[in-house]
């Protein structure tokens, strides 16, 4: 059964159309845009918080977006088990909104970084990774200035204990090393999920690795998992 995807547009979102294209054209799913100023999720089964610079990322990335009417609706949606996927700026917004723990600080080298990286699948227990293999390595690009994930020690232990770290930066062979960590993220964290496992935040962009024309296709594996997660219920 097809799922309906809603992609949020904040002023300053710039990967909104990319996510929409991926679900609508690549995966042939019903998809719609959700305007930041509305609190109507239009009956979507999954909400995508896309990359970009919501509200110019002024003050702090995601700090203004969290107050938008749409995010209020997303918080309610998530609390009832609704699927939410935050990519890049979306991850930052989910952290600021309290849907995910921790914070994304400026990259270790203080510069924006855009390049393909390798991430290792750490858990397959989520709607976003159920069809992947644990330990599998995916090549997916990053593009961010603030991707340096940080949380306190207790939170990190909880994330680990609850198997909520879904992706970690690794070498192409799947080894977790400091050199494979592009931005200084604690424990090489590239993506985590909520306690209910229905909210994902990740810095790499699977939608940028979803067609052969783009030279990378591993992102398909992640998006495909989400598209087929309806069958899990």
């Amino acid at each position, binding site marked *: 059964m097809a799922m309906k995807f809603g992609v949020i547009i904040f*002023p*300053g979102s*710039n*990967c909104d*159309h*990319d996510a929409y*294209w*991926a679900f609508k*054209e690549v995966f042939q799913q019903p998809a719609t845009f959700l305007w930041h100023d509305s609190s109507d999720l239009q009956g979507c089964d999954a909400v995508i918080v896309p*990359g*970009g*610079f919501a*509200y*110019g*990322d*002024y003050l702090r990335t995601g700090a203004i977006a969290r107050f938008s009417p749409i995010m209020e609706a997303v918080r309610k949606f998530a609390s009832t088990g609704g699927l939410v996927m935050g990519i890049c700026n979306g991850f930052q917004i989910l952290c600021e909104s309290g849907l995910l723990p921790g914070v994304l600080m400026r990259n270790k080298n203080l*510069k*924006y*970084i*855009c*390049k393909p990286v390798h991430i290792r699948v750490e858990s397959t227990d989520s709607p976003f990774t159920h069809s992947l293999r644990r330990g599998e390595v995916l090549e997916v*690009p990053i*593009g961010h*200035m603030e991707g340096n994930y940080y949380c306190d020690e207790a939170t990190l232990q909880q994330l680990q204990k609850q198997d909520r770290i879904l992706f970690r930066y690794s070498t192409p062979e799947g080894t977790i090393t400091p050199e494979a960590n592009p931005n200084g993220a604690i424990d090489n964290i590239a993506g985590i999920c909520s306690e209910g496992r229905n909210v994902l935040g990740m810095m790499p*962009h699977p*939608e*940028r690795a*979803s*067609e052969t*024309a*783009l*030279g990378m296709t591993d992102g398909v594996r992640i998006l495909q998992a989400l598209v087929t997660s309806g069958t899990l219920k």
Partner: protein
Amino acid sequence: MTSPENAAITAEVIRDHGLTQDEYQRILKWLGRTPTLTELGIFSVMWSEHCSYKSSRVHLKRLPTRSKLVVQGPGENAGIIDIGDGWTCAFKIESHNHPSFIEPFQGATTGVGGILRDIFTMGARPVAVMDSLRFGPVTKEPGDSGRWQTDQATIHKNHSIVDGVVGGVASYGNCFGVPNLGGETKFEPCYNGNPLVNAFALGLVKREKIFYAKAAGAGNPVIYVGSKTGRDGIHGATMASEEFSEGSEAKRPNVQVGDPFMEKLLLEACVEAMETGAVIGIQDMGAAGLTCSTCEMGGRGAVGLEIELDKVPQRETGMTPYEIMLSESQERMLLVAEKGREEEVFAVFRKWGLDAVEIGQVIPENKMRVREHGNVVAEIPNEALTDDAPLYHRPVEPWVSPVAKEVPDGIKFGTKKDLTGEFHALLASPNICSKRWVYEQYDSMVQTNTMQGPGGEAGVIRIKGSQRGLAMALDGNGRWCYLEPKLGAMHAVAEAARNVACTGARPVAATNCLNFGNPEKPPIMGQFSAVIDGLTEACIALETPITGGNVSFYNETLGEGIYPTPVLGIVGLLDDTSKAVGSHFKAPGKAIVLLNENRKKHIDEAQVEFGSSEYALHILGAMWGAPPKLSLGAEKVLHQALRQLAAEELVESAKDCSDGGIAAALAEKGFAHNIGVDVDFASSGLPLECVLFGENPTRVLVSCDAGHVSRIQQVATNFGLAARQIGTTIPGNFQVRVDGNPALRAEVSALKESWATALDRALHSDVKAAAV
């Protein structure tokens, strides 16, 4: 220069505005009275070199600007070509050199912002940017002697300029959400006090949805949209029309400040407003701000615009008419809407949280009229500011290269049999080494259309919902133009087009950014005129008309000019993106074929030409001679051959041999996938250095299945080109022999280390050393 409106127009005031006495007399004649200070300011920016092209226009007329595909040539905000399937693309390159020296980060951001507005003001959504950057050296070089001394302090200053400019380009494009497909980054001592920041942008628009910067219909409302007007950037255009002197850095307040978030909102709102059908004409407020958009939109439509300054949204209180008219605050547009449909436009801008205010209306007279509190503070005929701005036939004196033709004493060729050590150094030299440090700061993938991003021959994007794609490249070679301006300019066109052709695309149109010194010096005008001749000849031969661009003069500091530096942007069409060819080797065991012009070089000719190469400059520490000869006929057929090879899917990769010669090209082709080569060249009696590192044009290395070699040779022969298999790709090792003797031997990973880390090391090592 914020004196009261009624200030006396003294000789000093006129001079401070960069106007000559002759020009002032012309103003008096146009107006039939003494101008107000506001009017004088308006004339001074519109008649500045930057806005009026008064020194260059007579020469620019020689450039070819038409073809069947050209929908819009020079004269609008951007050129437009037809790319098929109902689509057109708008593109242009523009300089932001002067502000980028004074305030590198903001200078670069506003350069990118300005060119993006030029694109979307035509109704086109920007889908790609590229940039061509030139800086002074960031490391001590052996060739660093003679005219341009680069001391340690200058090197450090250059580091901060590089860091600021790259950060600025990144910050703006990344936030705006347009992929950066690369370009070029070059280092040469002549750019020490005058870095060049040339930004290129390209956008897509359906043919029937193109917008023009033209007003029409007396009584229609004039609407101001976007950011509020502040005091920033006043006289930016005039600053860009002067040489730098000791006090130039005090001009920092003349540099505008960019806000890419605002520009992103402006893009979305403008595109949506255009969709309503209520917009008649639209122009961005770039150089010369409200002044330029008001008189140009009126002038193009043979009508006038009358505006009331009280209604202009202002960021600061107490701004004078002079300041409002001359402000270059960023992210602003002026549009003319259909009377009665204003509300449709306002609604769109409200939705995006932007100011949109009716500030005046179209009037039947062909003049701009500016009011403050209802009183007229400026009233000037449009043509006085636009078409009839001063035009100068500046004296032209042929440029004579100050560099000797002959090989300097003390330089001996062919004394060494193995040049592996020199090759490592060459790969690590600033102009050849990897520019990863630069382009990884740019978002090259947003919009998910990028098929080939930075680091290759050309940028390639697909067009969603179509088989088609576009390839684009920027190239220039200031050193070659310095030695021989006309030939150097021809090379810039040929190389950019060749890079585009390597992808399998057909180069169809060009845009140019012409960076020069002071046009009041006859030899500089000699360079300029010769460069125009070269561009004209090459663009006609390669069928790439110039659809727009810009001229940047006065790139001089303390009387010393930059090398004449035309930068060419070439756009090519790909009919089927699934057949696009990349530049990297993909696998070992493939044949390597060199496609080139069927012509042998005499040893004397080769040695004279070698003096303009990167090897001569960076390894031998000398410069002499002239750029390599170029046959435009051979170049043209090479591009055709490449297109046919791509269409028949005969090659897996194609790359031209330019900086660092064939050796550098072979190595660079293997770095992405750690693939080496086993190659043997015939020297044909030339010294080893010239064979390996000579920079002859019109040469492309392709790799292919062994079974395709004979077909490739057949295609080449049909075009009158040579195609020789020079070797094969192998795993991990780089082995080049000349006449059977080993000349270069290394592991690919070792060569890559030299190449990949050099820029990073150059930009950081000196800082550390200085801190100790």
